[in-house]
């Protein structure tokens, strides 16, 4: 992690810490959802940004979290924390099982395979009515908590979720700055060169996939417990568009990008309420503009010359 990114993280942490003093409940609730997506994007960033792979299917792993927590707590009366942990284990097992054959694919083929994964999860959430209640969804999901103690109110959720973001970013930073992180970077840079250096490319791709799936599942569980409701729409293709927009706008492959992207894109609809109907269009346009003019998202803004014909990297 660069010194600039460390500094940016400190600034973000300071703002997050004092924000509840000035913000109302509505802003805090937006920040809670933004934080949940920041967890998801941080994990996805490990797979896409750091390892240079592509996944259109992490909504499936978020689905494991959402539905795992919902079903285990509402139907079976589990404690939310245990439900969250069990959902993560299920997501990790599924990622191992699916990733092993899928990650042999590259580029468009990998993209299509992961897209199929997301679509299958969506279909399952619709079709397995006895478990998921289909389009009706599952409501009454209890708040997150340990034992008899439950999080209540936006301020408590806000600090709990952003503590999870902090933990997620810390783990991400530890991985990226380790030998494993450099191996992942080598895979992103040139797979053949990485193999020639003795790096077990398949193993590390699978590792990044599984870790990012765990992040997605945790985020899914947090979302279910915070909103106390889950339905198939939550984990549909819209989530994929949202994640991509957040990740690319924030800055793919950067540590702070998933946080800034998640918060900004989550707040944007609230700022543009008049254009609510055009939300997907705005996301699409934002994604297009970023990919064209600022491939490192908000990180590229320091180099505006790129917009006017200079190098973008």
């Amino acid at each position, binding site marked *: 992690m660069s010194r600039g990114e460390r500094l940016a993280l400190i600034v973000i942490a300071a703002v997050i810490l004092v924000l509840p003093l000035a913000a109302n409940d509505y802003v805090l609730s937006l920040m809670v959802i933004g934080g949940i997506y920041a967890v998801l994007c941080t994990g996805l960033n490990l797979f896409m940004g750091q390892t240079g792979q592509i996944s259109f299917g992490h909504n499936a792993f978020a689905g494991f979290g959402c539905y795992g927590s919902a079903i285990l707590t509402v139907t079976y009366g589990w404690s939310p924390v245990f439900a969250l942990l069990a959902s993560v284990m299920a997501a990790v097992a599924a990622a191992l099982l699916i990733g092993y054959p899928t990650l042999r694919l590259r580029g468009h083929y990998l993209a299509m395979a992961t897209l199929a994964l997301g679509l299958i999860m969506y279909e399952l959430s619709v079709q397995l009515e006895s478990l998921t209640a289909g389009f009706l969804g599952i409501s009454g999901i209890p708040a997150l908590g340990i034992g008899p103690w439950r999080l209540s109110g936006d301020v408590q959720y806000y600090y709990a979720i952003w503590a999870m973001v902090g933990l997620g970013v810390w783990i991400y930073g530890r991985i990226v700055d380790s030998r494993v992180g450099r191996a992942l970077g080598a895979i992103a840079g040139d797979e053949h060169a990485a*193999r020639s250096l*003795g790096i077990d490319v398949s193993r590390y791709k699978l590792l990044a996939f599984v870790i990012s799936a765990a992040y997605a599942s945790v985020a899914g569980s947090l979302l279910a417990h915070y909103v106390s409701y889950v339905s198939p729409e939550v984990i549909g293709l819209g989530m994929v568009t949202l994640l991509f927009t957040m990740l690319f706008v924030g800055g793919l492959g950067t540590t702070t990008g998933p946080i800034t992207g998640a918060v900004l894109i989550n707040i944007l609809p609230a700022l543009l309420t008049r254009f609510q109907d055009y939300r997907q269009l705005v996301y699409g346009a934002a994604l297009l503009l970023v990919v064209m003019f600022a491939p490192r998202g908000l990180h590229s803004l320091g180099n505006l010359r790129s917009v006017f014909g200079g190098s973008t990297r």
Partner: protein
Amino acid sequence: MSTPLLQATDLSAFYGKVEALKPCNIFIMPGEAVVAFGPNGAGKSTLMRALMGLVASRGRVVFDGADIAALSTQMRARAGIAFVPEGRGILGPLTVMENLELGAYGRYGRASRGEIKASFEKAFDLFPRLFERRNQKAGSLSGGEQQMLAIGRALMANPRLLLLDEPSLGLAPRVIEEIFVKLAQLKREGITLLLVEQKAPPALEIAERAYVLRTGKIVAAMSTRDIEGPETLARLYLGG
């Protein structure tokens, strides 16, 4: 007579169904430098990639007495073959040190910290400029420095055989000369070299033997002493 360090028998390579390298035989003796040259599209890089297990191939490849044809690329690297690919394959966002560290990846757990530190020192002794730029992003290095880094990184694996695909590509004549002086030094230190080169003259100076490839076939194998001048080279490149 000693046995070859590397011997490939009936080695052919494929891109999909296309046979890019027709069945060929090559061998490299320990401590030897061998050059494979030929025009564009002759199959030189494919030969390298087949030896490294980076393309689908058939045939037998024996390295240091063991058949490695069924081994994955990373296992071949761990067996002692290092590869400097065309285009260098360095990681621009990482520093010089981090790139070098990646070169020793296959040795972690097998080599001591002291041995890996010695490899760093060896790479810096060979290319002092890498030491000066050790904390610099690799992407900000010049082409020549990047090539030095690619070779230095390959040496971090402590290889017995170093495969170099077009090490002179895109470099200024003075830098090419510098790179080949270093390769000659490596050869003197006992590292076996197989080079693929379009610029034959500097490679012929350090190599004992040469293979000439045309249209995916090895069409000649000879001692470099038998290549007398530009006319011989032109004939070998173009045939006839």
